[in-house]
């Protein structure tokens, strides 16, 4: 049973925010401009990005609202009645509520009657997990259509109040705490949605899902990107082990961190998975017409390209397509936002039969995911 992406949608909250304005939105911690902002922004080369908080760090859109808006756009463009959707899969790093699962909340907001749901939890690759679950359900002929939504509201973790409250954390002690501040200038908010069906859309191009693969290396590496612990060497406590949430926050256990020294491993494991799929004959780089790669920063694009070139399996740069630089790094939502714009963008001509390779790596604890699409018409 072939499965097709027949419609897409996206939602980016608020106006585009350029590099210089970012600190006005997230807030200057203790009134001090960051020493690191310019350096990190220069490396990632992201220009405008969007936030679901305003300049007073008040939430303008909840994560569920963003997911719902992207899903509504996707459904408005679809040739299928929403009552006929059999499954809803929702991915996010963190829903508005720790419990229940975000899919329940999005289903309610969308008023989708009695359907099967799944919430996937992770970071960037949670979107691929949700897509794969939906794809498999259709392949098993359990449903004829499934809505897959991925939404990310990172700015609530990145606003100045979070850092100001962490008075007994590494961030408060060090003059510059790169690991704790790094993601502040990387991530932003948004949502994307894909509709899967067991037949192509009657009009326009659909994207057939040919294969999906994932390789996680958590068994080998320490945690690289996380929320929930203080980031101190040897600390095993996680946020709910503290006597109060206030204490967890003071100690910095609620701050988002990236162990920057470990980051190169995600590039290496990404290339390893890519080469593995070449070796298995699944990935054929010279047949790929468009490469949609979720790299979090321009810095990593070059590293990936260099390694693929060394192995002689690079996809030429002119076949790479991304909207990272104009829509921001929206974590789990990035790939769906990318696919949505890719399908509508005037700067790329997609023809029937075009082959598209998508790559979503996740640095959290080193999960790399890949899927392959072919443009088809009914």
């Amino acid at each position, binding site marked *: 049973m072939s499965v097709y992406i027949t419609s897409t949608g996206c939602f980016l909250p608020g106006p585009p925010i350029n590099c210089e304005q970012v600190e006005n939105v997230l807030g200057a911690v203790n009134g001090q401009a960051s020493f690191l902002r310019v350096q990190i922004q220069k490396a990632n080369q992201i220009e405008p990005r969007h936030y679901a908080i305003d300049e007073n760090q008040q939430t303008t859109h909840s994560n569920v609202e963003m997911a719902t808006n992207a899903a509504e756009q996707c459904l408005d463009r679809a040739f299928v009645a929403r009552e006929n959707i059999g499954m809803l899969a929702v991915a996010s790093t963190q829903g508005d509520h720790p419990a229940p699962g975000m899919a329940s909340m999005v289903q309610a907001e969308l008023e989708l009657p009695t359907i099967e749901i799944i919430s996937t939890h992770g970071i960037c690759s949670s979107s691929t997990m949700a897509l794969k679950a939906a794809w498999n359900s259709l392949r098993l002929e359990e449903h004829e259509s499934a809505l897959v939504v991925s939404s990310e509201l990172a700015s609530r973790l990145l606003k100045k109040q979070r850092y100001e409250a962490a008075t007994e954390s590494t961030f408060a002690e060090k003059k510059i705490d790169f690991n704790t501040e790094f993601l502040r200038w990387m991530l932003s908010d948004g949502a994307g949605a894909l509709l899967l069906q067991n037949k192509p859309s009657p009009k326009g191009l659909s994207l057939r899902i040919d294969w999906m693969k994932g390789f996680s*290396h958590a*068994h*080998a*590496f*320490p945690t690289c990107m996380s929320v929930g612990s203080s980031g101190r*060497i*040897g600390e095993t406590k996680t946020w709910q082990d503290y006597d109060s949430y206030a204490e967890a926050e003071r100690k910095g256990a609620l701050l988002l961190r990236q162990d920057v*020294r*470990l980051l190169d*491993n995600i590039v*290496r*494991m990404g*290339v*390893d998975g890519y*080469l*593995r799929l*070449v*070796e298995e004959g699944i990935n054929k780089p*010279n047949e790929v017409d468009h490469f949609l790669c979720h790299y979090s920063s321009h810095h990593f694009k*070059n*590293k990936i*390209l*260099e*390694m*693929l*070139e*060394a*192995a*002689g*399996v*690079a996809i*030429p740069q002119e076949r790479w397509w991304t909207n990272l630089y104009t829509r921001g790094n929206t974590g789990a939502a990035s790939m769906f936002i990318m696919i949505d714009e890719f399908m509508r963008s005037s700067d790329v001509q997609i023809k029937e039969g075009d082959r598209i390779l998508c790559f979503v790596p996740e640095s959290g604890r080193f999960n790399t995911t890949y899927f392959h699409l072919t443009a088809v018409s009914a």
Partner: protein
Amino acid sequence: MSDSEIAISDGPKSGGVENKEIVSLNPHAQVCLQQLLRVWLGFERDLSTVPLIRRIDLGTYTVEDHLCFLRNLRQQVIEGSRWITRTASSFDSEHSEIRSAIIQHAMDEHKDYELIEKDYIATGGSIEDIQDMSRNIGSEALHGFLMYRSSRPNPIDLLGAMWIIEGLGEKMATSWAERIQELTGLNDDSTRFMRYHGHNDGDHMQQFYDMLEEVCLTQESVELIVKTAKVVARLYRLQLEEIEYEIR
């Protein structure tokens, strides 16, 4: 860029940023390089599970760990120049180019163990302790395998061994040396071997690509080189795992 052209630079773990050069590789050498890259990436990942190396990642590596690391490394470096010279002597006159390259390589490194001894003393160890250290179980296995393979006629598969060991030299320099100093408060005097070795290995990688182009001409040679790379990767990791037994 065509399939037979590759961009190379300073090490197996990256296509490189500096001194990028385009070289042509024959199709077998190209496939071999792809597979070697995967062996390397898997080796590098699995090194992260070795307790001593994991402590570098987790930030709990100590001066005592460093002494132990150097004590165990010295034997492997001494034996390293032996299997490399043996490899050179096992090539016949039809492989004189590769023989010259390997002899030069051995010349460059055959006294590297003296650097390790200096690092050991600078770290607070005594020369007697490091000189009295015998090969650990992993070093025995690694050395035994390399001497066996290098004694065979025209042992081209040892390119696979060089790939792993040279790659590790660069990893020590770029990923470990500075981090070890940061964690332990030791200074440059304690990581000379690690840093020097990585710097020196840049030229060796260029030679490596030249040798691969010259000897990797059949599917059979691809398989031989890749298999030896896998065995060396596994035995090198065993050698690092065995360091832990000494610590206990």
